Each structure stands twice: as structure tokens, then as C-alpha cells.
């Protein structure tokens, strides 16, 4: 995937996230997000600092243009960018950094990609739901919301993988 194509896809997915945030309020137990997968798929060559700045900017954009607490998405997304290299190294190994290659389902396998996606989404949702509740909601509610949101967001994020991390052989 060429560099320009990725960022166009990134912006389009950002718009998609805005639509999800503004119009898909099915139940208070489910919070749909594709922001973690977007940050996870930022090219490795961008580096951690760049990824964190992009994550902060992305989160703030969503916060500004959607309903909710300003800064909440950015607060939860920056840690994903900070932990991104760690998650990639843990799941895919350090060779990707040595070769400066981005991951894809075809190259790394669905299981590993799904695991990386799961961990980044989990990290994002834990922080987001914890801060959104602000200590006013019971643990069972937060736990249920985390499980439901993680399941739904994980499925939606898997669908976006084809856009952000396509098969390099195609």
C-alpha cells in the first residue's frame, strides 16, 4: 500500500468513526470504535512519537466533531500509540522493525493480527470506559460494557483491516 493511499484510507476511516460516534447509539452497553485499529496500522516507519501525535490529533478530532467529553478519545488513544510497538513486537516479533515492514493478515497470519487488534482495542476500551464512567458506574456495568464493546469493536475493526493493511502481494 502506498503512503498516500494509507492516509486517504485513514481519513476516510476517521470519517467513518465520526459517523459511528454520532449515529450508532444502539445501546449504552456498546461503544463502537475503530480508532485502535487505525493507530495500530500506522506505518512502523512513523515511530512512536509520530504515532502518539497522530493518535492525539485523531482522538481530538473525533472528540470535537462528535458527542461526548472533549479529550476522552485522545486520552484513551494515546496509550494505544505508546504501546503499539510493544504490542507489535510481542505478537509479530522484532523482525518487522528490523525490516521496517508493516504487518498484514497474509504476511503474519490472521491469528496474530487478531491478537494485536484485540490487545490494542482492549487497552483503548479499558481506559475509555473507566474515564467515561468517572467512578459513578458500578463495576458490573463497566465490565459488561467493556465485554460488549470489545466484541463489537473487534468485529468492526477486523473489517477495516482490509482497508488499512491490505495484502502486499495484490
Amino acid at each position, binding site marked *: 500500500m502506498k503512503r498516500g493511499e494509507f492516509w486517504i484510507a485513514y481519513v476516510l476511516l476517521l470519517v467513518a468513526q465520526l459517523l459511528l460516534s454520532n449515529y450508532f447509539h444502539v445501546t449504552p452497553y456498546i461503544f463502537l470504535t475503530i480508532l485502535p485499529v487505525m493507530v495500530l496500522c500506522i506505518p512502523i516507519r512513523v515511530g512512536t512519537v509520530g504515532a502518539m*501525535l497522530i493518535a492525539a490529533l485523531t482522538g*481530538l478530532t473525533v472528540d470535537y466533531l462528535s458527542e461526548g*467529553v*472533549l*479529550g*476522552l478519545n485522545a486520552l484513551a488513544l494515546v*496509550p494505544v500509540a*505508546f504501546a503499539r510497538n510493544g504490542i507489535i513486537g510481542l505478537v509479530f516479533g522484532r523482525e518487522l522493525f528490523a525490516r521496517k515492514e508493516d504487518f498484514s493478515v497474509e504476511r503474519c497470519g490472521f491469528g496474530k493480527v487478531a491478537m494485536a487488534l484485540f490487545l490494542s482495542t482492549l487497552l483503548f476500551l479499558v481506559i475509555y470506559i473507566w474515564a467515561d464512567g*468517572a467512578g459513578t458506574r458500578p463495576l458490573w456495568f463497566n465490565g459488561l460494557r467493556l465485554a460488549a464493546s470489545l466484541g463489537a469493536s473487534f468485529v468492526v475493526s477486523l473489517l477495516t483491516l482490509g482497508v488499512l493493511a491490505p495484502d502486499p502481494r495484490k
Partner: protein
Amino acid sequence: MRGRGILSKLANLVIFILLEIACLHLVTNSAALQRTWIARGSHAFMGTVWGASESVRNYFSLSAENKKLVEENYALQQQLAKAQQRLRQARIDTTKTDSHPGYTLTPAEVVKISRNKQHNYLILNRGFEDGIQEKSGIVTPKGVVGIIDAVSEHHAFALSLQNHDISISARIGDEGGSGILVWDGIHSNIALLKEIPLQYHYQPGDTVFTSGHSLLFPPDIPLGVAGESRVINGATNEITVTLFQDFSSVRYVTVVHNDSFDEIEAF
């Protein structure tokens, strides 16, 4: 290379913290609920940190604190001892009068008295804690009651004048001869003034006083009035004395102690 890697990770961490602080700032400024929550969390955190630091500081200052407490305790004990000393002195001083210079007077109450034996006694409610000493006299405004024989912490045991074992030095009239006054052993208010030389004349009805020759009683305490007399062995008079003191009603007494008793006894 390794140094650059560490620096890079450190820079990542610093930027991450800065971004998170900025995000938290935005969150607290945009939502009251989150602001309260974060403020509560930060207060709890600061409380824990301050509490822990205070505990550590207190732990390391325990030695100095203990030393300070020991010094305070010592100072308080000193003050207590001085106060007790002053209290004891005040009790003694308040009983001192000029009526019998050279004697210490201590008021006391009779808690037990016997009157129907040949060796009668009484017990007073004052002991050595109150300054009472052995070999002190017991008097009332009506005369002599007895002599302290033994002293405990808060009580004193005394031999009553109605006891064959004690005798006191007495004088008949203002200028009369001195003799020994003892209980007659029969009547509760009659005593015998013995060993009065024949050359001393008296009249029945003269007052008998303590002579002051004894170390136990100050002089000139009225004891009773002289009555009949008889000559003993052709050498001395034995005079019957009707005592002023009514032993059946004695309750409040005064203990008198010669301040120079020990010094004179040493001779």
C-alpha cells in the same frame, strides 16, 4: 546504540506523559463529572503520598520524640514531687501556732477510744504522712488526753491518760510544786498528783497545770482542780485532782510535738 535506544524510549515516555496530561486537562475542563472524579482521585493520591511521607518522617523522628517525652515526664515528676512537698509543708504550717512556741500542733480526730479498762488507749486518724510522730502529746482545750505510742501511715495509736502505764509532769497553781499526775484507776475523771513536797502549800480548788518539765507537753495546760490530799511516807503529798477532761465525749484533739524532742533526748 543502546544509549540512543534508552534516550529514545525516555523521550517517548516524556511525550506520552505530556500528551496524557494535556488530554486530562481537556477532559477536566469539558465535563464536571470527570473534573470531580479526577480531583477526587488526585486528592486521594496526594493524601496517600503525603500520608506515606508523613509516616516515614514520623518513624525517623521517633527517637527524638521519645527523648522529648522522657524529658517531659521527668520534668512533670519533679513538679509533682515539689507540689507534694509543698502540700505536706502547708499542712504542717497551718497547724503551727504561737500558743505553744517550740511545739508543732496537728489537729486530729479520735476514731476509736477505750474507757473501761486499766490500760485504755485511743486511735487517731492521723499518721506519719500527716507529720505525726511517736512520743507526742495529745491535748484538748480541757486538758491532756494521752501520749502517742505508735504511728502508722495514716493513723496513730496512743495511750490514754486513763492508763496506768503513763504519767505526766504537772504543777499545782501558778507557782506551786511539781509532781507526777497519774490516773487513779477507778474513776474516769479523777487523777492523783503525786510527789508534791510537803513545803508547798496549796488550797483545794487550785488549778493543776502541765509543768513543762516533760518533753511531751507544753507548760500551763490546765488539767483539773486540786481536791483532798494525803501525806505519803511522811515526805510528800498526794493530791486528788478532778480532771477537766471528759473522756466519754472526747472527739477532736490536738497532737503536740516538741520540735526539740530528739535534740534533748540525745542528752
